[in-house]
């Protein structure tokens, strides 16, 4: 066990030792023309169940109400690395990125009230596009290569409070501060050496606000329902102190159900709607669903999950779709004061003549000192 802990700590160090901008990497080509690729807001436990456990997991920054069950100070961190293959018109490209999608720190301040803080990824905005063309300059055809890159993300800083108002009912609210930046570069190189390379660089700062509320209702001892709603204002993009654009952010709501099927089996399902339609051209409202389960002891469970849904940005009148399978393991140590979670997810996205296949490895560490 000590060896596994050491290895995990080492992996965490290696994953986080890189510059911060590398830890907020891209997720999809579908986000290039839109605002970006929405973050998951899921811990490793929730991710390994396809997202089905997210509404019931205190360390998934999706709902606040589950925080009410945190009885002592605890912190959870999630790291991930994705290997992505993009296929467009028969041409494949292999991409790789690492990220630091979620951190949650929570603890009770009274017997009934728990507060939490942390961050998650709201929008991944890292991408790079390379194009080749031949254009006519001064009456001569000249080959050009354009590379446009964006490196950064919008983070969701969350301050949440939850309370168990009844033995069967917990509620929570949160304020969300959206902040982040991207470093963009547009580089054109010419095949003809008479033309100098043109490089333009800029940094865009993003800002926005949001609020959310959620509730958990224990219908029976084994059946729990979750519901949530979230509304974000507008995302402003500032370039050199000037607001370059303002974009509507979605209202979202969703729910879930969890059934404890014995002492060593839990299954859950979740759905969510997000109204992205106002976020610019080629944006779509999305619906997503997930189904997953956890079997085994609390100390070392096995998790499986499946998810499906839509992506908010993509060309044409129909939203791109995604479908994924996930699996994971957990291991509790130090008498329950620490927990390691590993997960592996396989996603397929399709739409607009492009498809993506993504393998994602996620690693989570939860500590209850």
């Amino acid at each position, binding site marked *: 066990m000590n060896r*596994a802990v050491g*290895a995990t700590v080492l992996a965490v160090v290696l994953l986080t030792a890189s510059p911060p901008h590398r830890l907020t990497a891209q997720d999809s080509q579908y986000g290039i023309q839109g605002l970006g690729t929405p973050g998951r807001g899921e811990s490793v436990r929730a991710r390994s169940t396809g997202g089905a456990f997210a509404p019931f997991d205190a360390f998934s920054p999706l709902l606040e109400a589950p925080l009410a069950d945190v009885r002592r100070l605890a912190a959870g961190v999630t790291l991930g690395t994705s290997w992505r293959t993009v296929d467009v018109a028969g041409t494949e490209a292999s991409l790789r990125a690492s990220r630091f999608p979620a951190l949650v720190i929570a603890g009770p301040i009274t017997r009934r009230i728990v507060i939490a803080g942390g961050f998650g990824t709201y929008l991944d905005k890292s991408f790079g596009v390379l194009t080749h063309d031949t254009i006519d300059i001064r009456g001569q055809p000249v080959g050009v290569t354009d*590379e446009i890159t964006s490196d950064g993300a919008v983070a969701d800083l969350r301050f949440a409070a939850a309370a168990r108002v009844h033995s069967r009912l917990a509620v929570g609210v949160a304020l969300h501060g959206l902040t982040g930046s991207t470093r963009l570069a547009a580089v054109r190189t010419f095949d003809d050496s008479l033309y100098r390379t043109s490089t333009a660089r800029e940094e865009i700062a993003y800002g926005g606000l949001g609020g959310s509320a959620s509730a958990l209702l224990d219908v029976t001892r084994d059946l729990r329902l979750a519901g949530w709603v979230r509304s974000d204002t507008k995302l402003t993009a500032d370039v050199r102190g000037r607001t370059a654009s303002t974009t509507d952010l979605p209202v979202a709501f969703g729910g879930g159900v969890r059934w404890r099927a014995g002492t060593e089996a839990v299954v859950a399902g979740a759905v969510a709607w997000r109204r992205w339609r106002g976020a610019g051209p080629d944006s779509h409202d999305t619906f997503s669903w997930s189904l997953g389960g956890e079997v085994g002891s609390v100390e070392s469970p096995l998790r499986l999950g499946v998810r499906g849904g839509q992506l908010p940005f993509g060309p044409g009148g129909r939203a791109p779709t995604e479908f994924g399978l996930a699996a994971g393991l957990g291991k509790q140590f130090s008498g329950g004061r620490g927990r390691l979670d590993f997960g592996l997810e396989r996603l397929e996205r399709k739409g607009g003549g*492009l498809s993506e296949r993504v393998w994602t490895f996620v690693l989570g560490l939860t500590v209850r000192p």
Partner: protein
Amino acid sequence: MTPCPRPILLPLLLAIGACTERITAPGACPDFCPRDSIRLEDVILDSIIVRDSAYAGYLQGYQGEALAVADLPGVDSRAIFLMNRFTEVMPDSGDTTRGPGIVDSSWVRVHIARRDTNTANLRLKLYRLPITIDSTTTFDSVAAEFGAPPLDSLNVDSLLARPDVVDSLTVATWGDTIRTDGAGHVLQFSPADSTLILYFRLDTLQAPFSVADSGKLAFGVRVAADSLASIALGANERLDGATMRRFYHYTKMIDSTTDSTVSTSLLRGATFDNFVFDPPTPALDAGAVDSTLVVGGVPAVRSLVRVRIPAFLRDTTDVVRATLLLVPAGPVPGAAGDSFTVVVRPVVTDIGPKSPLSGSAGRATVHIGSADTVRIEVTDVIRAWARDTTAATAFVLGQIPEAASYTQIRFYSSRATARRPTVHVTYVRRFPFGGGTP
């Protein structure tokens, strides 16, 4: 039992794999590319050249890096050079004993730094000139000496047609193979390049030793050919001027009753070299200064050109190519097939014709006889000026090599509205970050 290493290795390998990031993919445009693209614009700026003028007198012919020698319709140019003094008492190297020397013969060496390989039957003629030649010597003042029979002449084409002399003694003496003719002229290829080094062999009548003149001698070179009689000889300014080796002997006393004859040689370089030509470079009068930008000739003429960078180039663009377009006022006179270089050198600070200059920012080759528009790539300097608002935005047009040729080009100045200098600029518009791709 050895514990299984896999629990350790798996996350470790994954973490190491995550240490590299690759986020750039081939673009599937337009659907999966940023909405905005890099936009290129192309414009000819016809009013950014302002307050331009020509100035003369930068370098004289004797300061040039080459000596133009030509005999062409419309121009006759001749090289002249004065050899250093030759002491009456010959030093005996390594021995304190000295004695009177007797000159036996001499070599005069000249280097053809540039020639037209299409020239047929190229001949060089060596003339004796008075040792009074100096910077005031003109074409006319030495016309009589050049009108006399030459001291010697050699045919370059004949020498080139001769076989290499490759015996070991020759190679040991000359340092390389040579070609020689029956008159004792020697041709060698320069070890640094493929240019030609020529040696005239002169006897004591052709190159006498005069005590009164301290052994000084002056020579002139003319060129002749069936066509395209134009060459450039190396000059002192490039450490490539004419030299003279005098072979002499003297009697050395071994003891009070015994002597021996010592044969040796001394090398002397030219203390002055120049070229004189007819007709002379046209005067840079007010009319020429007003209407044209003059470059080249002897004395060397340069043109100072000031550039007014438009605001849009500074604020919203990235210049990727800039070409200075200069329209000649007419074909450049000179030897057909010849050429020279016009160079753009930005000023460090603009204090008029004496402005200090930085290095070359662009150059173009001008062909004799052509009146085509001269195009000089000045991308780097225009880019620099667009970004640095404190820079002096002026440059000087000069000739390379300067004052080494009678050739001169005249471009239309900014006062010539229809044919004024212009700058063809290709630029990339500032990418609309934060607009189409919020």
